[in-house]
C-alpha cells in the first residue's frame, strides 16, 4: 500500500516538475486601472464617447511558473472595483482569470494568452417611473444577478523597474473568433513580487 501511495505521489511530482528549472518562480499582488471598451460607448447626448483613460480601479493576484530558460507561464486573477451610483440598487462587477505564456528578456516580460472575463450585473428589483411617449410608466428593475462569460485573448508587456515591483500594460480582446461584438479593453497595473513564497531560500530573480 505504501508503495502504491509513493508511486502515485511520485507521478504527481513528475508531472509538475518534468525538467530542470521548472516550478513556481513568483507570486505577486497588484493594483491598477481597467479601461473598458475605450472610445466605443456614448457618454452624453452630443455623441461624445468614453475616453481611452477611463480608469476603474482593480486588484490582481497571480503566480509565475518557470517553464524553460526564459519562458514561463502566468496564471492571474483580477477584480475590478464594483460600481453603482445612478441607481444604487444596481451593481456591476467585472472579474477575470488569465493564463498566458511569457518570454523574459532582461527586465521585460512579453505575454500572450487567453482568459475568461466575467461581467456580473445585479439588482434587487423594484420599479422606476420613466417617461414613455407622452406619459410616464413604471418600468421593472432587474431582480436577480446575471453573469456574462467571455473568452478573451490577451497581449501584455511588463517592465521591472525595481527588483520587487513591475508595471504592466495588457490588452484584452473580446470575440476574436467573430466579426461582431469585437472590442478591446486594457489594464495598466503595478505589481509587488514576493518571489517563490514557498521557498524562503529563493531570491528575487530580476534586477
Amino acid at each position: 500500500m505504501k508503495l502504491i501511495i509513493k508511486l502515485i505521489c511520485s507521478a504527481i511530482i513528475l508531472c509538475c516538475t518534468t525538467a530542470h528549472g521548472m516550478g513556481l518562480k513568483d507570486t505577486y499582488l497588484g493594483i491598477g486601472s481597467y479601461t473598458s471598451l475605450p472610445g466605443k460607448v456614448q457618454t452624453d447626448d452630443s455623441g461624445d464617447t468614453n475616453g481611452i483613460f477611463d480608469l476603474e480601479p482593480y486588484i490582481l493576484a497571480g503566480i509565475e511558473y518557470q517553464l524553460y530558460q526564459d519562458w514561463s507561464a502566468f496564471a492571474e486573477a483580477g477584480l475590478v472595483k464594483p460600481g453603482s451610483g445612478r441607481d444604487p440598487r444596481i451593481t456591476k462587477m467585472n472579474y477575470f482569470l488569465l493564463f498566458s505564456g511569457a518570454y523574459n528578456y532582461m527586465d521585460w516580460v512579453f505575454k500572450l494568452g487567453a482568459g475568461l472575463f466575467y461581467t456580473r450585473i445585479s439588482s434587487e428589483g423594484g420599479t422606476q417611473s420613466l417617461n414613455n411617449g407622452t406619459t410616464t410608466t413604471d418600468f421593472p428593475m432587474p431582480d436577480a444577478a446575471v453573469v456574462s462569460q467571455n473568452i478573451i485573448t490577451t497581449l501584455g508587456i511588463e517592465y521591472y523597474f525595481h527588483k520587487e515591483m513591475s508595471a504592466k500594460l495588457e490588452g484584452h480582446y473580446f470575440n476574436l473568433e467573430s466579426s461582431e461584438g469585437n472590442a478591446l479593453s486594457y489594464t495598466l497595473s503595478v505589481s509587488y513580487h514576493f518571489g517563490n513564497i514557498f521557498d524562503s531560500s529563493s531570491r528575487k530573480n530580476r534586477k
Partner: protein
Amino acid sequence: MKTFLTLLALALSMKSYAFSLNNTVSASYAQSEVTVNVADNCTNLGVSSSEILSMVNDGAAQFWNTVPTSRLRLRAGSVVSVDSKFYTEKICNSNSGSCEPNTNLTVGSNVLITCNGNTTDNFPASQRTVLAITIPNNISGTTIVGALVAINDRSDNVFQDKSRAQMVSIIAHELGHAVGLGHSPVTDSLMYYTLVPVRDSLGWDDIDGVTYLYPKEQPIGCGTISQVDTKSAGLAFLLILLSPLVWFQLRKLVARFLHSAS
C-alpha cells in the same frame, strides 16, 4: 512594499462610474439570433419597407450587435406581406398601467415591424408625436417568442421628418424594446425615451441592459439567462483565486511525505 501600499490606497479612493438598468418585461428570446421582418404596408413614412429593412440592418450593426458581453445578434430578415389588421387594429386591448396585447396581432416568432394607421386607439391626435409602439406580444413564461413594432403611420407622423441616421436610431430603440429592454433614465442611452442631438453608439446603460438579458456564455451556453446564486459565485471565485496557492502547498506536503517515507 510601502510604495505598493500607497498606490493601493490611491486606487481604492478613485471614483468608479455607475449605471442603471431597466426592463419592460423580465423576459428575453431563447435564441441568440433574432430575425427582424418588415411588413409591406407603410404608406406615409416617406421611406419604403425595403429601406426600413436596410435601417434594421444598419441599426443592428451600429448598436446592438456591437456588445461584446451579449450573445444577442439581430438579423434583418425580409419584407413580408401581413394581414390588414396589423395596420388597422389597436395594439393593446387595454392600456391601464400595462399593455394587454391584442391577440389578433400576435407575432408567431422573432420581430415584426409594421406600420399602423389606427388614429383612434394607437395614435390619436394627442399622440401624433409618438413614433412607434413596441411590445413583445407573444411571451411564454420568461421567454419572448415574438414581438411587434408598430410605427406611427398617420399622415402627419413625425417619423417622416427625421434624417436617415435618426430613423436608424429610432428603429434600433424600438428593437431594444422588442428584445425586452425598457427605457433608460439617462440621455447617453439609446433607450432614453426621446431622441437626442447625436446618437452614434450605445451607452453603458444599453450595454448593461442587453448583457443582463442576453449574457454571453463562452465557451458554451445553454441559451437562457444564467441567474446565479451570488454567494456560491463569490465562493467559487475565491476558490479559483486561491487554488494555485493550495496546489503548491499540496505539492510541498507531498514532497515532504515522500522525503520522510524514503
